Structures are given as C-alpha cells and as structure tokens.
C-alpha cells in the first residue's frame, strides 16, 4: 500500500490515526491539519482555560499525540486539503502537494456559524474588533484576553452549550453578562423547553441577564471597534465583547466534486453508512459525519460531541482497514460490527455537571429530584415506553447507567427502578 491519509488533525482524526496503528497497520499514515498547533482538546476552551490562567496549553495536547512518538505519522500541519480527486485516490493539499491515498479518513469537523454580514454593515464579524466565536485555541486565547480586559458588558449571542459555558466562565471572571437567545427556550432542539429553562434559571441565579426570543440585529462600531448591539426587539445594549455561539457548519467545501454525498441545511455533513463509510475507500468520522441511528428510527444525525469523535475515530480506522481488505503481518484482517453507540456528552456550567445521553423526545419525565434542585435526573421516552434519552444534573453515575439503559432499550418501569 502507498499509504493512508487522515484529513483533519483534531480529536476524531488523531483517534483514527491511533486506531490504525492499534489495529497493526504499519504503512505510511499522513495526517493533514489546517491548524498549526499540535492537536489539542477543545472542551477546556470554554471552561477552565478561560477562567484559570494557570491552565497550561501543553495540558491540552491530545493524549495519543502527547505519548512519545508512538504513532509514527507524517505530519502536514498548517496545511489544508483542498480536494479529494482521482476517484478518492488523491488528496490535494494547499501546499500544492498531492498525496496518493489507498484510503482516506475525513475528519474535518466544523467551524462556527457567523452572524450575517448585514449585522455589521457589510463587514464580516471577524473584521470587527470585539466580536469572537469560539472553536480553536487561537479563538480561546483571544477570548480569554478580552474577557479579562473587558471594560463593559459581555453579550453572548446564542444560549447553546458553548454560549452557556462561556457565559458561566465570564461570570466567574466577574464580567457583566447578557445572554440573548432567539428561541423562546434555549437548547430546545437538543433537550426540551423545560430542561432548557432550568439552564436559564441557573444562569439567572448567577447574575446573567438572559433574554429569550430575541437575536442580535446590529452591531455598532466606533473606529472598527464594537461598542454596542441592537437586539431584534429594538433594545440597544452597550457591549465590549460579543461572543457569537449560534451553531456550527461542517467543513465539507474541500469535498466538492469528490462524489461523496455531502448534504446541506438540516442534512449537512458527509453522509456515511452504519460502518462510517462514505465511499469504498473513504470513511468520515467525528463532527463532520452524518450517520444513521438505528435506535432512533434510523434517522441520520451528526453528533457534535467529544465522546462520539473519539469512538468514531477509533472505529472508522478499523472500518477503513476492513473495507480495504487489509491484512496484518499475521495474515489476519479486521472485522467490524455496525457502529451505533448511544450519544453522550457533558457540559460544565458553574457548579453543575450536566450530562445527557441519547436524544430528547416529547415525552420527558423527572425520575429523580426536580428541575430546581442541584441534582436531578430526567428521562425521555419513545414508542412502547422505551427510554431514548437521559438528562442528569450532578448525577454522573445515573447518566452513565442511563446510557446503558438506552442501549438496552429499557422501559419506563426499569428506568424508575434503576435511576429513581
């Protein structure tokens, strides 16, 4: 084999590279990554990296990379893939180089969605001093600096998990924080309205001015620097830092013309089958990949979560080797079962550890505590009273057991029995 190419040097890509080596693949592996940093972990960027200046950037480096040279990769950092051509056999790079590939792992993740140009009189938000999105280490360095030196209110646009975590971190730093959300309840898409309101209450108790049902319409600048924003209800707010947390867009432009199925809108991302395959010699993993979820009626979803990127990266590696009918030195090949784990994520806000497994449905029920408590567990049921989602506040044990109950297709009575 001439070699394998992993595109995207972050969580999913690095775990794919590690998975290839673990399976015994000892040929060349190219790892291509647009960012120039050694691959690092993102979750701390909205949490302790902002609040605690002691967090050393070296601590963010992903474990498989931090472990001494074990992966033996050919690195192409600070380099983008610009095309997948020649029937998926070539990966073309921004450096002008073309890598020949027997197999390709697509792990290019997502980038933050930006406010429309009309918000800043035709300018892109990145050209306005004081407006930040948070995805990369560079973004986090900038935001950390801005929060510490803010001489006015911080406005967080979008009360999704990243926005909410930034709001919590900014409060911990003593900033005045306004969080605006266009929906009537935040996280209504991920959780349900009631659980979303529990998040709102949490922030209000910590002094965040939360405004629901409004967006940011306009940013006012003075000499290129943001000074205020006008909300969609006409309110004008002074604003030293505007944090834009309005969702993400998968990085799939480089795949145009590749023949892979790349959707848009609510079908965005690279479509893969239940073995993470996008084409006979291509797998896609992590935030960029849209996969079928058998447990949830076969619906296809992208899962923008840490655990998914780790698991899918490792699995995708094996699946690619199986598809290529690769054989190790002992003559053994790789066999994979379909990939369909129950999604799971955590979010830390103030003293709350919020964990969620599965998906939300329109049939939620509290099984322990109540939404106003420091600790509670809420379950979401589907057809035949089967549990499909579990939300746990400061109840990590229950979250993990809940995930297993979803996996097992447990019914309502069992859920009450085990989690109540």
């Amino acid at each position, binding site marked *: 084999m001439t070699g394998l190419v992993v595109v995207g040097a972050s969580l999913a890509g690095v775990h794919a590279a590690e998975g290839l080596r673990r399976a015994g693949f000892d040929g060349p592996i190219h790892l291509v990554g647009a960012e120039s940093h050694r691959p690092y972990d993102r979750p701390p960027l909205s949490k302790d990296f902002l609040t605690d200046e002691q967090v050393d950037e070296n601590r963010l480096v992903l474990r498989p990379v931090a472990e001494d040279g074990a992966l033996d990769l050919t690195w192409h950092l600070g380099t983008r893939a610009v095309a997948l051509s020649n029937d998926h056999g070539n990966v073309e790079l921004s450096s002008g180089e073309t890598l020949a590939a027997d197999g390709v792992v697509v792990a290019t993740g997502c980038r933050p969605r930006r406010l429309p140009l009309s918000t800043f009189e035709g300018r892109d938000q990145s050209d306005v001093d004081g407006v930040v999105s948070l995805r990369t280490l560079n973004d986090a360095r900038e935001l950390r600096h801005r929060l510490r030196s803010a001489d006015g209110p911080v406005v967080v646009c979008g009360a999704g998990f990243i926005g909410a975590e930034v709001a919590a971190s900014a409060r911990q730093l003593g900033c005045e924080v306004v969080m605006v959300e266009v929906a009537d309840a935040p996280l209504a898409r991920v959780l349900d309205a009631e659980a979303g309101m529990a998040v709102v209450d949490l922030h209000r108790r910590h002094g965040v001015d939360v405004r629901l049902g409004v967006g940011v319409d306009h940013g006012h600048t003075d000499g290129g620097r943001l000074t205020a924003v006008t909300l969609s209800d006409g309110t004008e707010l002074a604003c030293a830092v505007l944090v834009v947390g309005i969702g993400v867009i998968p990085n799939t432009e480089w795949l145009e013309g590749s023949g892979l199925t790349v959707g848009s809108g609510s079908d965005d991302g690279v479509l893969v089958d239940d073995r993470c395959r996008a084409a006979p010699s291509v797998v896609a993993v992590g935030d960029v990949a849209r996969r079928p979820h058998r447990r949830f009626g076969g619906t296809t979803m992208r899962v923008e979560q840490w655990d998914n990127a780790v698991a899918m990266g490792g699995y995708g590696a094996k699946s690619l080797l199986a598809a290529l009918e690769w054989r190790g030195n002992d003559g053994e090949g790789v066999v994979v079962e379909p990939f369909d784990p129950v999604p799971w994520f955590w979010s830390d806000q103030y003293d709350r550890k919020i964990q969620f497994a599965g998906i939300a449905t329109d049939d939620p029920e509290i099984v322990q505590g109540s939404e106003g408590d420091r600790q509670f567990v809420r379950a979401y049921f589907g057809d035949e009273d089967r549990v499909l989602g579990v939300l746990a506040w400061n109840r*990590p044990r229950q979250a*993990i057991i809940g995930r297993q109950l979803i996996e097992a297709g447990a019914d309502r009575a069992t859920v009450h029995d085990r989690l109540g």
Partner: protein
Amino acid sequence: MKVVVDFDLCESNAVCMGIAPEVFEVRDDDFLYILDEHPGPELHDKVREAVERCPKQAISLEETDA
C-alpha cells in the same frame, strides 16, 4: 498493569465506570473509587478503552509484569 488516576484531573463523570465497572466505580458521594488497581489480563482491553475515553485524560497505565 497498574491503573493510576490523577485525581486532580478526574471530574467523576463515570465514563470509566461505564466501560470497566470491575475496576472503576463512581459512588453517590461523587468520588471515583478504583476497585482493582491491578486488573487481570481479561480486563486489560476494557481498561485501555477507559483510558481512551476518559474526557479528562486522567487515567494512565503503568505496565508491570503482572
């Protein structure tokens, strides 16, 4: 194999317990307990998976003869 957890990093999210309950347990007091510091060979794969999936990169393994 010896299992070592950096308790300054661990945030008790119980991921490891989900994978290897024979070795890790998060109790209702919200602390992680290591039930078996020297798990037998039949558990090594699970423990390695726990190392991989720990969101805080808090678990490490010291390879020993046993």
